[in-house]
């Protein structure tokens, strides 16, 4: 079935009449990829995110120095051939710390991305599909969470749980699910009355089956877009908590914490705070561009 030449593969993927489930699914993914790859900014975003993943995976190979090794004779050196991005107040190489810091950033992003949207999606679709009492109860809880500014609520959680990167992740996840629940509920309400949901009810499907198999797939694409666009905010919140000393603890090379320690030297040794700042900026931009591109591909209203 699978041809070897590239032209054959493309024909197989774009076939009008797929022969199997897998071919139909791959063909759909391929068409989405074609639409996505036409958007140059989105491709730049994807490139930045892939670069971040590579940096995190290959940090031990790429980093010229140990990110934790202090050398007080080398402290606060400006960028040079030996230290491309300079050194910080303890003589640690900033480039190595940024490379290792990408692992923390990626961990925060990944853990928040697999918890908050999933919780929001479940709460929103259940509330929207069941309506009535379940809807009222779940959405009032959501409203309570939405009533607090995100960073303030995260601060409150972290001070209650104790500072640390794990608690920062938990705090960010707890504070970022309510908007996802709102989106999922709104989408569910428009889907709930449609004939294809009535049809599956007429086949005797149980409520969990309808929600998970028929409602969730339709809500998830707009949620994926929203999550990608929120990634920048999540990175910034994590960096903000690190900056305030409530996220990653020293000597962990978390970018926000690095900016915080560089703050006192910002006028004379500007590179200490600026380099991790640029890293945060570039990664946030990358996720935003990626999210924009995904919206063009996944948003059902665009089709």
């Amino acid at each position: 079935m699978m041809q070897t030449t590239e032209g054959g593969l493309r024909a197989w993927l774009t076939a009008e009449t797929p022969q199997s489930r897998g071919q139909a699914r791959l063909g759909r993914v391929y068409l989405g990829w074609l639409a996505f790859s036409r958007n140059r900014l989105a491709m730049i975003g994807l490139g930045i995110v892939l670069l971040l993943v590579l940096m995190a995976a290959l940090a031990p190979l790429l980093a010229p120095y140990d990110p934790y090794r202090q050398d007080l004779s080398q402290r606060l050196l400006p960028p040079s051939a030996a230290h491309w991005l300079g050194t910080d107040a303890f003589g640690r190489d900033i480039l190595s710390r940024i490379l290792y810091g990408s692992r923390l950033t990626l961990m925060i992003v990944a853990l928040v991305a697999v918890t908050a949207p999933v919780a929001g999606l479940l709460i929103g679709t259940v509330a929207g599909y069941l309506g009535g009492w379940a809807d009222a109860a779940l959405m009032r809880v959501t409203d309570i969470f939405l009533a607090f500014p995100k960073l303030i609520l995260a601060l409150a959680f972290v001070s209650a749980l104790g500072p640390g990167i794990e608690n920062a992740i938990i705090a960010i996840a707890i504070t970022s699910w309510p908007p996802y629940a709102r989106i999922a509920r709104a989408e569910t309400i428009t889907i709930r009355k449609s004939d294809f949901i009535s049809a599956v009810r007429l086949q005797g499907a149980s409520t969990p089956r309808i929600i998970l198999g028929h409602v969730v797939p339709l809500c998830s694409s707009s949620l994926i877009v929203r999550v990608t666009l929120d990634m920048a905010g999540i990175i910034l919140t994590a960096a903000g908590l690190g900056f305030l000393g409530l996220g990653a603890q020293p000597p962990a090379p978390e970018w926000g914490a690095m900016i915080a320690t560089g703050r006192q030297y910002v006028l004379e040794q500007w590179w200490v705070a600026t380099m991790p700042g640029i890293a945060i900026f570039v990664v946030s931009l990358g996720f935003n561009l990626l999210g924009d591109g995904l919206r063009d591909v996944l948003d059902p209203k665009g089709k």
Partner: protein
Amino acid sequence: MIDVTDLRVTFGQGADAVAAVQGVSFAVRAGESFGLVGESGSGKSTVLRAVVGLNHDWTGSIAVDGAAQGRRREKGFFKSCQMVFQDPYGSLHPRHTIDRILAEPIAIHGLRDADARIDRVLRDVGLGPQFRFRYPHQLSGGQRQRVAIARALVLEPRVLLLDEPTSALDVSVQAEILNLLKRLRAEHALTYVLVSHNLAVVATMCDRLAVMNRGRIVEEMDVEALRRGAAREDYTRQLLRASQGYDRAAADSFKDFA
């Protein structure tokens, strides 16, 4: 096969309450094709949705295949009674392949040999196996309606409720779908309840029909009487005249039947 007695359906509460169906009774024999005719808002689709269990707020009694039905239906009920919706663009899940759409009822009821069933039912509705792994957006309106009919037939029901099955399709495709429905009824000994505002469709498809207006059945007649134009009630006569096409003199003479 279907016995409906004094069915009443009200939407909303208090001052906003709308009595959509006000005391409808009819009986459909096994193997019969029964038409429900009326203008928009006469309550004919509401009757159908109450019979199939999509609408829970009704009073009266509904019996299907000799069994009185409550407000919530047992899973087994859906094996004997299925429905085809009006709009083929809204009744198929946009992210599921035809294969997935047809496999779903088989999985829900835990039936075996899904592949053979899907192949058979696709052939039954005149779609070849090449349609099996397509998405609904790759199909025309008529093809989608065939898929919707196939989905209703997968469980091998005895009763098929048809809610304006052709009104969203263009005329040439309408005839194809009506012929398909006729053939399927003969082959599978199905009982049809067909809701339509189109008297010509009802005349070709049904043995007997009931005319509805404002939530009530105005008149029951057989299709022979419909073809002769032998209506007892003024409302039915007006509906017959309206169905013959636009005519200014006729339109001016139309009355409101409360």
